[in-house]
């Protein structure tokens, strides 16, 4: 599918999606709508994004993005979905571990480093750090002991 | 078949057992004299001084900026040159070996080739304070003509 087709397909699902052209096609959607969109483009035989090659979080100070880099082994197209989460105190998003199994570990990492909670995750736990630690990849994270500023 | 595969493996080890010439390991502390390094081998940062106790460092802090770990700290002072002008010169070139990752970025960054990597690789000391080194020798001066 070309980028234009993908755009129209996503707009059908999420009408207010914002697109950014870059290296890949970026689609910014609201966190609450991301799950149904991801599920549908995974199951749609025309898109069939079967390979989630990168899942990460980005902290833009006012809001978080959970970024899904998707590609399809069959159709050879790539798409980036950015789910926007505005709640900084208790950020939540639906887990996609049921769609792509790799998400299970990646979501643990995002939870550990950003504090974004994933609903319906099979086993949400701190992966690297202990339970009392803050969320180090947030931009407002401070640590006087372990971070030595140069 | 199965036994043949086992015998072929035993033939290899048996061959090495009977042809014991090539030695993979090094007798390290004993062969210190004969150890060879590539000329680019990164041991630790040193500042070469010539016979007049002169170095080439202008104190431009390019290495300090290039260093990813804050390993290098340059303390400068103002000096009055021969022509009466005030000139910036280094007072202390402080090098924290304990923080160095030997990435070579400071050497590449230096515009006057004042520092280089030595081949000394045995860095262990009993006191951590010894890892903080001052690279310019006392009373050393900058080589004339290096700006």
């Amino acid at each position: 599918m070309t980028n234009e087709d993908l755009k129209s397909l996503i707009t059908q699902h999420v009408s207010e999606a914002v697109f950014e052209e870059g290296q890949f096609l970026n689609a910014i959607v609201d966190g609450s709508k991301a799950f149904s969109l991801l599920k549908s483009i995974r199951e749609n035989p025309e898109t069939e994004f079967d390979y989630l090659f990168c899942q990460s979080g980005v902290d833009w100070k006012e809001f978080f993005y959970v970024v899904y880099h998707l590609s399809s082994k069959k159709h050879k197209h790539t798409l980036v979905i950015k789910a926007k989460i505005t709640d900084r105190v208790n950020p939540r998003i639906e887990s996609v571990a049921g769609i792509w199994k790799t998400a299970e570990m990646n979501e643990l990492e995002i939870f550990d480093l950003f504090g974004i909670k994933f609903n319906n995750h099979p086993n949400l736990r701190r992966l690297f750090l202990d339970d009392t630690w803050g969320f180090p990849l947030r931009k407002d994270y401070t640590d006087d002991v372990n971070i030595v500023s140069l | 078949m199965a036994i043949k595969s086992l015998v072929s493996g035993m033939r290899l080890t048996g061959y090495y057992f009977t042809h014991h010439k090539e030695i993979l390991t090094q007798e390290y502390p004993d062969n210190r004299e004969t150890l060879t390094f590539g000329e680019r081998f990164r041991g630790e940062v040193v500042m070469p001084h010539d016979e007049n106790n002169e170095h080439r460092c202008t104190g431009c802090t390019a290495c300090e900026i290039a260093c990813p770990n804050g390993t290098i700290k340059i303390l400068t002072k103002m000096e009055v040159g021969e022509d009466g002008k005030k000139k910036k010169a280094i007072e202390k070139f402080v090098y924290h070996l304990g923080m160095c990752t030997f990435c070579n970025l400071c050497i590449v960054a230096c515009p006057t080739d004042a520092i280089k990597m030595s081949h000394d690789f045995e860095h262990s000391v009993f006191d951590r304070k010894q890892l903080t080194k001052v690279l310019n020798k006392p009373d050393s001066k900058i080589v004339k003509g290096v700006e």
Partner: protein
Amino acid sequence: MFSFYDISNSIHQWLSSQMGSTAVMLIEMAIVGVLAISLFAFLGLLLVYMERKVAAFMQLRLGPNRVGWKGTLQTLADTIKLLFKEGFSPDASDKFLFNFAPILVIVVAMLLLAPIPFAKGFQIYDINIGVFYISAVSSIGVIGILMAGWSSNNKYSLLGAMRSGAQIVSYELSAGLSLVVIVAFSGSMSLTQIVQSQADGWWIFKGHIPAMIAFVIFIIAGTAELNRAPFDFAEAESELTAGFHTEYTGMRFAMFFLAEYINMFIMAAVGATLFLGGWMPLHFGNLSGFNHIMDFIPHIVWFMGKTFFLIFVLMWFRWTFPRLRIDQLLTLEWKYLMPISLFNLLLVALVVIKGWHF
């Protein structure tokens, strides 16, 4: 010619002429005990050194080369180090069993030394059921390993011990059956008589194919009984860290270590005695000149030569092969080695009855 038989006899006669028979027996027992223990210590040091050198040479390394000439005293230095190490025992361990296990293992290894004929007439105790004695006593060793694994209160140790139990119970069968083959050939269970029966040729040559099969099975089963690679499940370093002796330190660990090497020596000695003629020189039917030259080599050299050859083969296995998996190990025994041994025994019975062997 130099002979241990003369030496031991003359000592016995001299002692008998000096005192009563009870005192003679006591003194002789003391002498034998001292000899056995020193042989033990010496073999332990020698075999560990040998293993390290063999391993190093196969892996393009130098091996120990610091202490003594070419590192010969390295194992001695290691022993001294182990002696001075603190012997930890885990808090929740069963202290009595934990301390007793290494002693049991090493005592079993010592007991096994008794019926082995080192040279003509040089034997601690010429028991007339020697083969039976060896196969009976050698299986006690596993109890020590089970004790060690259980008392450590460590799951790795327990797994290692259970593996070892399953392994030795299984392989005892084919090892025993392959010994029975030679018993059938020679018609005796006494190790001395088995050696005597090989005066005109070793059983591995005289016994046709059945003896060869029995020898191969004995080597495989013996390796398994020794818990050595490729059957080192009880330790299985990459799986169970150190298996049954995970929690052992210092001299207690050294005892396990020593017992392993002594057992290896005994396994090789039994194999050499039964299949390769023990201290019997190599004789070929009617080449009397050749046979005569062979007779000049002392018996002890023949015995040790054969034993160390077998030990070398065991080491060669260890430094070449990967480890099997526990279920494959049991499959190998019960599905292959065991039926083959039984069938082989049948064949041997036929050969012996018909008198087909030389």
